[in-house]
């Protein structure tokens, strides 16, 4: 089994319920990671990360969508850059979107906190690769 041990918690920030269901199912099925937390928009995710009570539940990897209500992926990254120093944990952020718009891909490249830009749908092989990369 190619489970990458250090990854203990994955965080999915996405308003697409079917996608979130699929990711959850796949991770469970392949036992990629024991814990998964999910948020439907960027604001809820940021509030969770900022809350000191959640310090021991901080994720190792974040799968971040772009288009979401209330706070989208870009705004999330802005807020994330501000709170990052207080987190005390290295978190790998992947931007995961259906958008193949060059403007989005280029914009993601300019943000240093984003490790990679992944175009949906995410296959099992790709997911595995992302986990290994983050480990």
């Amino acid at each position, binding site marked *: 089994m190619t489970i990458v041990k250090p990854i203990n918690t994955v965080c999915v920030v996405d308003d*697409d319920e*079917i*996608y979130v*269901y*699929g990711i959850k*199912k*796949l991770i469970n*099925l392949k036992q990629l990671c024991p814990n998964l937390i999910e948020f439907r*928009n960027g604001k809820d995710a940021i509030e969770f990360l900022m809350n000191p009570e959640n310090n021991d539940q901080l994720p190792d990897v974040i799968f971040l969508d772009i*288009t979401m*209500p*209330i706070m989208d992926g870009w705004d999330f990254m802005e807020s994330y850059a501000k709170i990052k120093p207080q987190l005390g944990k290295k978190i790998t952020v992947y931007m995961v*979107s*259906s*958008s*193949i*718009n060059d403007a989005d891909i280029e914009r993601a490249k300019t943000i240093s906190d984003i490790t990679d830009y992944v175009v*949906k*749908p*995410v*296959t*099992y092989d790709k997911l595995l690769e992302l986990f290994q990369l983050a480990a």
Partner: protein
Amino acid sequence: MTLKTVDTNGLRKRMPDEIYMSIGDNPIGFYALADQYLVNQQLHNLIESTNTGLWERSITTNEAWWSPKFCELLGYAYGELDSNYLTFLQKIVHPHDSEMMFNAFQSHLKTNTTYKVELRLLTKADGYRWYESSGKAWPDKDGELSRMIGGIIDIDAKKRNEIKLKRNEFQLRENNKIAHIGGWEFDIMANELSWSPEVYEIHELEHDGHIDVSNAITFYEPAYRSIITTAVNNAIEHCKAYDLELQLKTAKGNVIWVRTKGVPIIDEHGKCVTLRGIFQNINEAKLRELELHNSVDLLSDQNKRLQNFAHIVSHNLRSHTGNLQFMVNLFDEVDEVSDQKEIFNNIRTISESLANTIEHLNQIVKIQTEISNEKQELSFEHFFNNTLNAIDNNVAETGAIICSDFTSCPTVNYVPAYLESIFLNLITNALKYRHPDRKPQISCKTYLELGHTYLTFADNGLGIDLDKYGDKVFGMYKTFHKNANAKGIGLFITRNQVESLGGTIKIESTVDVGTTFIIKLI
């Protein structure tokens, strides 16, 4: 009595035998001058040297005499011209000038005005040339005006230049008129501004000659005054030419675009002494240019929206097909029947979402097809009430208080489907994003302003933080509230409908207070 006949061949040999003391006393009356002229070598030389040809005619008969110089000026030999005034009038004087000549002659005889005419005479070999002829009638011993004596000079070159100049001036004037262009000059030392007639005309101002620089500048629209003032000062102080397109208000209150160009004239010390320039009415061309700019802006706007739309379509279709692929792959991975059921349910949801997305696309495509539908005179009241009836249940459910006032502008010439859709989207939007703590209040009004029809739509709902989301409010699939039925399509469609008919839509909003849409329909 000494009657002399002029003999062309023996001209110089024959000397007159009598010298008369004064012309008026000449008893015979006719060849007096000829005699004097030929006899007096000094007088002859003097007259020759001024290039003046002499003539003499009887007023009572048609006898005439043309001096050697006169003949020479016309290219004839002395004596070659018939000694008859009538023949001269008919054959030598230009047909267009004979009447004028006759009138001047009559006027001289009757009222003693100066006889001085400019006329064309037929030369022997050179066609018609311009001459100035002046003369005086003299009385005989009985006091009757019996003959006229005078001289001609050749003014052909001068006259032709004059005519050419006049023609050029005329042409320039006509050109300027056609091009709406005039000239001006500003003498800096004397502080004197002068305008050509066309500049006055462009200003729609009487040509009274009183215009100074500060006065001239007040014709410009306030926004352009500092620009022209700076340009003029720069030209005077730094010898910098300028070429500007500005708006001014004419004396009659018409606002027009003009082009004003100023060039400094510099003296030997490098100092600007005079400003000279052209002034042109470019209103029509400028308005066309601005209109073109607007069209280009509108086109690039539409282009941007289309491109944006293409991205959105791609994104939304991709997200559904991506999920579909995801679920189908997952289906292969799971063994449990319960898992398979779950996944199949998801596939069903995706299929519904896909159908919805396609439906949204249809709505957007419809905007473009409906634009060609005929505009009609529509009653706001009628359409508003119809919309309310259609969503009766929603309104009742929320307990909304809806008031409308279309009295200031009861109708609009619009595409019916659009107006219906605009009302529907605005009302459902207001109900959807109502404030949880209060009953929704919606107020819809129409009014006319500067020839445009406006529709305002105000609610007391959640409001939206425009600093944060301002540019996205009318975007497709943009949602801002945690609202399960928010789709982010309504306002996108409303904006497209409004803009496709040349209108605009604006939003004002305060979080927790409410939102107002201001729509310029046409």
